[in-house]
């Protein structure tokens, strides 16, 4: 107890020295608070980003693997294609099996097929018409007349047609009817693509903003015959929100009535599509994956294509998950690919701020330690006599060391508290200026995703299908709580560490000093 009392008396007695030490500690505390607060906020931003942006793995076709088995030459074309056809694709059941993994948080998928329609006009820059060719032959002579409709013939091709022969007296007329396609130089497929998604997360084009709901909103039931259609298809067919469109199974001719819940706009600007009249998504009808599953259940011959998305728990799960898929039977021609590199690139700027802050903190602490150490050395030299007296009246070296450390610690704690308050005021403007751009970008991204689904700026998707991008990002719209308990705890830790380092001078000197020598010098 007397050690504490002596420390307090000594602090008051040596006001000048302690004010000097206090000013240095105050400067260190204020700059450390700012740095720690920036680090803390940067860590939170990165953490929030990582929480909001999962590591997503998908299964991609390993073309390189296949090309190694390709043979060269004209004759090998068939065998190459056969080799490609023989590669066993994964099914929806496979995807569900792969999804049951300890390395995953969740998974979703896009399930696509194509249907026809008798009532909808496909958005295309080609169309088909019928042509008739007559050839008349007489017994003595032969003339051939050919007639086409008045349509201009574009770059197209004949398709196999019907042939009728009429014989009248000596005249035989052969009428050949065929269908001809009027089209642009780039042929298109003729079906409506029906894309079924298992959740909003799977709708990457909407999350990224490539597609954006213009009218109505995204459906909420992923198994109901509800859909959203492109604005181009809607314009072409006078479709409005609430309309019913009928699609037809090309195999069974069964029809399905879909209620249009929304109309989306394709914002993509792909230079490759510049020669085309409609966007690639013009004939794309978006619905829930449950709908496709029902269609496939009714007609297993429907050609489907599935794209899975596996949300990994962490970075370390990538390798074991890939190995697990191989064990579960994923074909060797498929490989797991992730968005890890994109995520790392996205957080690079904030990581740079962190690196800067860390470097600044280390330099500050090193300089502060040296300055405090030197001041302590001078202080100890000035107080040698005092040390000598204490030792001669029986104060142990240990207790004396504690007293000196305590003196510095008391000054440090008081100044750390004042420094933390100063730092809190400084941290806000400095931290804001450094991080504001990041925050704005993050907020805009969230609002944009919400808009893309037609939910408005403050809209919530509701239910389990709410996209991660909108619900898991903790909104950081101000840095009010930048100096929190973590920062204070870290600051105290740094303060105590600095005190101990700078007190080393006192500790070593007290161990070395011979009290009698000190007192003799004084005498």
């Amino acid at each position, binding site marked *: 107890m007397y050690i504490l009392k002596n420390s307090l008396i000594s602090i008051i007695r040596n006001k000048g020295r302690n004010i000097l030490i206090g000013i240095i500690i105050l400067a260190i505390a204020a700059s450390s608070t700012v740095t720690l607060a920036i680090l803390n906020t940067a860590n939170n931003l990165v953490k929030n980003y990582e929480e909001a942006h999962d590591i997503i793995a998908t299964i991609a076709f390993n073309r390189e693997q296949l090309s190694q088995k390709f043979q060269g030459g004209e004759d090998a074309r068939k065998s190459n294609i056969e080799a490609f056809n023989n590669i066993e694709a994964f099914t929806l059941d496979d995807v569900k099996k792969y999804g049951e993994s300890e390395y995953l948080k969740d998974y979703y998928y896009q399930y696509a097929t194509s249907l026809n329609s008798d009532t909808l006009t496909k958005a295309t820059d080609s169309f088909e018409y019928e042509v008739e060719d007559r050839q008349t032959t007489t017994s003595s002579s032969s003339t051939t007349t050919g007639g086409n409709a008045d349509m201009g013939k574009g770059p197209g091709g004949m398709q196999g047609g019907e042939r009728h022969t009429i014989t009248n007296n000596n005249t035989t007329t052969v009428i050949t009817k065929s269908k001809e396609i009027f089209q642009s130089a780039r042929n298109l497929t003729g079906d409506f693509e029906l894309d079924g998604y298992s959740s909003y997360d799977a709708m990457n084009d909407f999350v990224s903003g490539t597609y954006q709901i213009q009218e109505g909103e995204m459906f909420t039931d992923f198994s109901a015959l509800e859909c959203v259609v492109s604005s181009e298809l809607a314009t072409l067919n006078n479709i409005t929100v609430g309309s019913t469109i009928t699609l037809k199974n090309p195999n069974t001719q069964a029809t399905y009535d879909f209620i249009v819940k929304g109309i989306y706009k394709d914002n993509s600007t792909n230079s490759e599509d510049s020669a085309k009249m409609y966007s690639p998504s013009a004939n794309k009808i978006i619905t829930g994956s449950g709908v496709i599953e029902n269609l496939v259940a009714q007609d297993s011959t429907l050609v489907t294509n599935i794209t899975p998305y596996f949300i990994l728990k962490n970075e370390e799960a990538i390798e074991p998950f890939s190995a697990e898929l191989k064990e579960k039977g994923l074909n060797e021609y498929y490989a797991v690919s992730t968005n890890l590199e994109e995520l790392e690139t996205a957080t690079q700027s904030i990581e740079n701020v962190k690196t800067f802050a860390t470097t600044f903190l280390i330099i500050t602490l090193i300089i502060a330690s040296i300055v405090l150490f030197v001041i302590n050395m001078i202080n100890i030299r000035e107080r040698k006599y005092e040390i000598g007296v204490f030792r001669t*009246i029986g*104060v142990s070296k240990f207790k004396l060391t504690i007293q000196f450390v305590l003196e510095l610690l008391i000054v440090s704690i008081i100044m750390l508290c004042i420094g933390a308050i100063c730092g809190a005021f400084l941290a806000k403007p400095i931290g804001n200026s450094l991080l504001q751009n990041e925050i704005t970008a993050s907020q805009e991204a969230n609002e944009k995703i919400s808009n893309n689904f037609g939910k408005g700026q403050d809209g919530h998707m509701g239910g389990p299908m709410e996209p991660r991008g909108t619900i898991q990002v903790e909104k950081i719209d101000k840095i009010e709580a930048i100096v929190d308990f973590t920062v204070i705890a870290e600051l105290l830790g740094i303060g105590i560490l600095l005190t101990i380092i700078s007190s080393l001078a006192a500790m070593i000197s007290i161990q070395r000093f011979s009290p*009698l020598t000190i*007192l003799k010098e*004084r*005498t």
Partner: protein
Amino acid sequence: MEILKLEDVGYRYKDAPKDKYVFKNINYGFEQGKMYAIRGKSGSGKTTLLSLITGLEKCTEGKVIYDGKDLRKMNLDRYRNTDIGIVFQSYNLLPGLTAIENIILSMDVSHVKVKNKKEKALELMKSVGLTEEHANRKILKLSGGEQQRIAIARSLSYQPKIIIADEPTGNLDKDTENDILKIFKHLAKKENKCVIIVTHSQNVCDEVDVIYELGKN
């Protein structure tokens, strides 16, 4: 019964040649209730001997025995703040503290169980001829004689069996020297302390019971 005994004590500085001793084969005995003087010329090792007795230095040869125990095996800090009181020629008081604070500090260090330390300190001050008026003065506001009295009061604050003083009257005038010697005499005769005075003053030697002459073994 000797409270303190020096047995074949010798001392050599660490960096000195092996045969270059400050002193060697010192065999002194000290009893309670008596006053002793250790006398010698300058450089004879008087202060060094004091530092060996107080445990501030260690003997090169021989041993110091306190109350039957070898000093080397004792806690020397405890020994200095409980069993032996030291009075220096230059007083060695803490100038930042007042007179009474210096005495109370010594009580704190030795963990003396006193109900009212301030009262006890004032009592000690009175016993060495100081008044309450001196108590709250800073050390540097006191005269040499007053400071020496405070140093003696401080050394008595934890009731040690031995009081050892290094040239306690060296800086004082004749009258003050006599006053201080009276205090030491009182401590030895009335309070049964063993008082050891390191000195070269004949006046001091005249007052003591036993004189040990360093350099004349």
